[in-house]
């Protein structure tokens, strides 16, 4: 049964994936998401699942690979440097077509960086830090409710495409509390149901139906065919998984592009700008891959600038420019290191940008 409750982000995320069918959690402690393994260690055993604290992020992603290859619905959460350690595994999971749900509660970098919120994982999660040609869908919710809805759906998306699926939150979303409507719990596969639900999985074969899950393909023509197959699948994912929210584009003088918590800040700035007689719009990519390039075709002739509001040095600018296609100037308002811009700061910088481009 669905129910409305007040929850801390990290705990709501964990509850959402359990309700979405996840019964296996693998993770290693890292700030700012450690409430998730804590929650999972308490909840999963009560709900027919298993919690396993890994010896490292390398261990965690490979446990999740084993779980997914065996047909289980697995979940991993981590934060930026931990996600970096898992990239070899993500490449492997994509090559072997094994599903898993991943959550990155991102923080500042490079290196150990800081434990404060950041969005400088944009390139890491959309371009892939692992080797080879592969893609992972990435969703960046802007509220705890939206994160809950996406995480509830993510295990099914991962299973449908036999591919990892990532949700990118940031430290702010993980730590804040909001009221959320929790959806009804889905049926989770039992180990007996796996061999019929996922005949490809290594579930302990009956003779004649042997399954092999692998990513090694030593013959060039075989690997080429496999990579082409993966990219046919990714083309379908690009069509089916693109998500975006646009606001006030029709008469906007300036259009913000922002995801996650920065989209909320951009919305505040829009209201303040309107009070000052400046119409601002917002393109909020919910899927970062596939990126909603076509949303930029809705830009109005009245729009004089597109402004990315990011907690990074402008990692999203490349995608924005691919969408804008040179139609208007593209600018950046950013803070990094765990610093957050205020809405007033965004307003002042936007006014300066408009003076410059007019």
């Amino acid at each position, binding site marked *: 049964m669905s129910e409305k409750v007040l929850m801390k982000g990290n705990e709501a995320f964990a509850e959402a994936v359990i309700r979405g069918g996840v019964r296996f959690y693998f993770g290693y402690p890292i700030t700012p998401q450690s409430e998730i393994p804590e929650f999972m260690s308490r909840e999963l055993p009560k709900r027919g699942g298993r919690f396993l604290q890994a010896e490292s992020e390398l261990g965690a992603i490979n446990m999740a690979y084993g779980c997914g290859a065996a047909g289980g619905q697995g979940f991993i959460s981590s934060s930026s440097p931990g996600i970096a350690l898992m990239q070899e595994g993500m490449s492997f999971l994509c090559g072997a077509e094994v599903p898993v749900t991943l959550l990155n509660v991102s923080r500042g970098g490079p290196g150990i960086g800081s434990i404060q919120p950041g969005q400088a994982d944009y390139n890491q999660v959309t371009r892939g830090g692992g080797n080879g040609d592969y893609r992972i869908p990435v969703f960046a919710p802007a509220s705890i409710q939206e994160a809950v809805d996406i995480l509830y759906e993510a295990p099914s998306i991962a299973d449908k495409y036999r591919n990892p699926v990532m949700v990118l939150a940031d430290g702010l979303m993980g730590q804040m509390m909001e009221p959320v409507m929790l959806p009804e719990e889905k049926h989770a596969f039992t180990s007996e149901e796996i061999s019929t639900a996922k005949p490809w999985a290594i579930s302990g074969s009956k003779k004649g139906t042997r399954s092999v*899950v692998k990513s090694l393909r030593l013959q060039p023509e075989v690997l080429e065919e496999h990579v082409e197959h993966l990219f046919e699948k990714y083309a379908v994912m690009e069509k089916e998984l693109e998500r975006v929210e646009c606001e006030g584009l029709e008469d906007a003088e300036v259009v913000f592009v922002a995801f996650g918590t920065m989209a909320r800040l951009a919305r505040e700035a829009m209201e303040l700008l309107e009070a000052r007689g400046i119409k601002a719009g917002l393109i909020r990519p919910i899927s970062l891959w596939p990126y909603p390039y076509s949303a930029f075709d809705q830009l109005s002739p009245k729009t004089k600038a597109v402004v990315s509001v990011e907690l990074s040095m402008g990692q999203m600018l490349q995608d924005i420019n691919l969408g804008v296609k040179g139609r208007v100037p593209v600018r950046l308002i950013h803070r990094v290191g765990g610093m957050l811009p205020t809405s007033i700061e965004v307003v002042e910088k936007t006014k300066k940008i408009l003076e410059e481009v007019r």
Partner: protein
Amino acid sequence: MKPVFTVTEGMLPVSTSYCPGCTHGVAHRIIMETLDEMGLLGNTIGVAPIGCSVVAHQFMNVDMCEAAHGRAPAVASGIRRVHPDKVVFTYQGDGDLASIGMGEIVHAAARGEKFSVFFINNGIYGMTGGQMAPTTLVGQRSTTCVDGRTVEQAGMPLRISELLATLDGPAYIERVSLDSPARIRAAKKAVRKAFEYQIAGKGFTFVELLSTCPTNWGLTPPNAMKRMREDVCAYYPLGVYKDTGKEAE
């Protein structure tokens, strides 16, 4: 007429890709014969490592997956969570298990993971062309120590069975050698005991199988067997390093 020998259904009817005189084929066969004899072929999940035996799934007739280099024990831990009632094993070489995968094997053993590990120790990296492994003997030549391994540069070779036996998690650890028919029969008994302990839920089971690599040792197959019997067994003593079943008796 009563057949006196039949080929196990545990091995697929294909030629292996291993070099002449390599004992991977022997190790594969005794593991799969044991599963066949125990009636477990339709009930088992195996994990192949990175190394020459990454292709083990082309020869072993059970559900299998590959694992990234060194990560097989983590992968098997994940599989075990989903299928607590199946038989699970990893098959790993010494570069995979004793070098890059040291973290995973130690923690899987410490957790007392209920799967069996077959550790193929031939003291060298085979697939990449004969580089020094953590298990390469002092004085042994490899492509990354052409004048022989020195203690000054690389320290002493790791004895994994002894190291893991210091932990409380393992139920059974034995080192065997594949250098003669008698020792192969003894090795098969160890493989069987590992599976029996796993099924009985006793905990982590580990069989180290001393193996040859004539190609990268630069020896003929008979001389490789002789070296294993004499030099390798001298540094890596055969025997049972842990047996909780015996301790309980």
